[in-house]
């Protein structure tokens, strides 16, 4: 296995990665902002779907957020559902097609704000679906407003002086809550702020697809994604800003794996 050294810049600039696209992407172009982490996370998900040979056995349910535009870019059977309702739609699909990999693509606004009930009940029922939450701590699509996952002190367009617990309430650590629920088989939090975190997150995503397909229950895969536009920082500073703000509250790694022993080849991520 090739190990990528992320401690210093590469000796020569990457040339192939700029033109390579996973076969499940219909276009090399997207319409999201410079420095956005979402395309990186989505590309990872699509690569894992290919690795697991789920290409012609999966359905994606997209929520409402910037990532929703990827319904056009992804060569995957897809629906873009109502805000926050993805896990409920996924439930209906999975109960009718139990052999198909059903996955939702949601943001923190979609999942922890509008859609909190749907993810909680789907997890409690142990639906065999994979739910992705791309967490950037803001409503990026509407220009950077506070979500339920915005961290204390975070400046957004409707918390101009920073999120104040006494006035705006506290952030919801959804992955920790879902990990405590009996129906959840796998809960992990990854990130795409540098090459090392991208590689680590890819392995978490594999298990997030595998556990539901094994019939073990729901997988919640949270991925911290940069949103420089929504954070009002230059694109190049997104990664650093993220790990100084969201990264301090939302720790990376596996929170739960009911079948850790069942897949020894994936242990030790």
């Amino acid at each position: 296995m090739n190990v990528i050294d992320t401690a210093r810049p590469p000796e020569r600039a990457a040339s192939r990665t700029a033109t390579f696209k996973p076969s499940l992407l219909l276009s090399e172009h997207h319409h999201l902002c410079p420095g956005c982490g979402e395309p990186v996370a989505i590309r990872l998900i699509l690569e894992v779907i290919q690795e697991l040979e789920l290409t012609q056995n999966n359905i994606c349910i997209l929520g409402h957020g910037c990532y929703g535009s990827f319904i056009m870019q992804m060569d995957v059977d897809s629906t873009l559902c109502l805000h926050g309702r993805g896990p409920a739609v996924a439930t209906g699909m999975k109960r009718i097609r139990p052999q198909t990999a059903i996955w939702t693509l949601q943001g923190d606004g979609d999942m922890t704000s509008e859609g909190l009930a749907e993810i909680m009940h789907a997890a409690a029922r142990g639906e065999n679906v994979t739910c992705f939450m791309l967490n950037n701590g803001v409503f990026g699509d509407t220009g950077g407003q506070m979500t339920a996952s915005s961290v204390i002190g975070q400046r957004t367009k409707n918390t101009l002086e920073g999120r104040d617990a006494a006035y705006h309430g506290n952030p919801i650590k959804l992955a920790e809550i879902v990990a405590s629920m009996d129906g959840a088989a796998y809960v992990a939090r990854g990130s795409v702020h540098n090459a090392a975190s991208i590689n680590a997150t890819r392995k978490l995503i594999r298990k997030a697809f595998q556990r539901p397909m094994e019939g073990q229950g729901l997988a919640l895969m949270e991925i911290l994604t940069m949103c420089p536009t929504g954070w009002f920082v230059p694109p190049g500073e997104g990664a650093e800003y993220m790990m100084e703000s969201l990264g301090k509250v939302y720790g990376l790694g596996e929170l739960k794996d009911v079948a850790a022993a069942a897949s020894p080849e994936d242990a030790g991520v």
Partner: protein
Amino acid sequence: MSGMRLLDGSEAIVEAAIMAGLRFYAGYPIAPATELLEYMAEKLPSVGGVCVNADTEIEAVNMALGAAQVGARAATGSCGQGLALKQEAIAEAALNETPLVVFNMARNQQDYFQATRGGGWGDYHTVTYAPKDLHEAVELTHVAFHVADKYRVPVIFMGDNLLARTQMGTSLPVPELEKLPAKDWALDGTMGGTGASRWIWTFGGGKANRPGVGPDGYWRQIAEKFQRIARDEMRHEQCFCEDAETVVVAFGSAGKFVEHVVRELRKEGMKIGFFRPITLWPFPADALDAATRDAKNILVFELNAGQMIDDVRLSVEGRRRIAAIGGVSFDDSGLNLGPLLDADIIRERILAQLSGQPLRQLPYTGMGAYL
């Protein structure tokens, strides 16, 4: 007669729905739609179907959307406030072309507006069937699933408490309906990576290699589709309208009571007719206009403060005198239809209205059963 069974309306509807191919139901308890959920939970697993006890009304309807989008015949059910919670998803089903049946076992008739006007966003209508009794309910259950699939639209089946909870003998006949094409639009998960992956999306954007017509084009196509439905799927029933000086309009269970009273008054020599819309949307406006061409009066009997009467007015555009003879009518009897749903009282109100007398105020029935 062989094959006859004594069933309440809820059970008959569930049996008919399963015979029509229903394989997924998700619901949340709310009287009088609760029995529907109970029967679904009991019967669907035995045919390989699924009934999910959803934790919210909103979850229930979105689950049904998901099941329908992967090709199953799917439904949810509720009434009143529960139907209000489902309206966002009903609009979504209309705008992303998902066939969905919503059973609205209404408490009385105060759901007319939210069924026919649509409580959600966008340029859409909800096809709404209002059966008068269990026999028609069995037929319209089949029709509801058929029309939902034929046009890829949400359909509301509007029953009520009396239908849900009273028994009749039925052989559960299956109406003959045209064969529909396979659902080549449904998401089955097999098209990934082929360049021909499928999408279901309110904005009609398509895929990067096959862009759709976009919101503007898609919503115009959908609006045109509802015009076709309005032209082809309208249903109504009428009797004695040809020479009637007075036509009484009513729908659902109330229609059955009114029809009985009109038949009695006819026997007594009164020139009175009866008109009952079976589809509340599309409302049979032209048929009502024609049926009342020579009538002096149109009386509208509905168990609400006056909702369908708006559609009656639009149908005749001021060419006839119209009066409401129904009203809010609710009680704690368990049937919740109140004192107005009574043949003698309907008769009294028709005669009072025609002779210029004020309609008698009925006493409130109170909250006795709740105390």
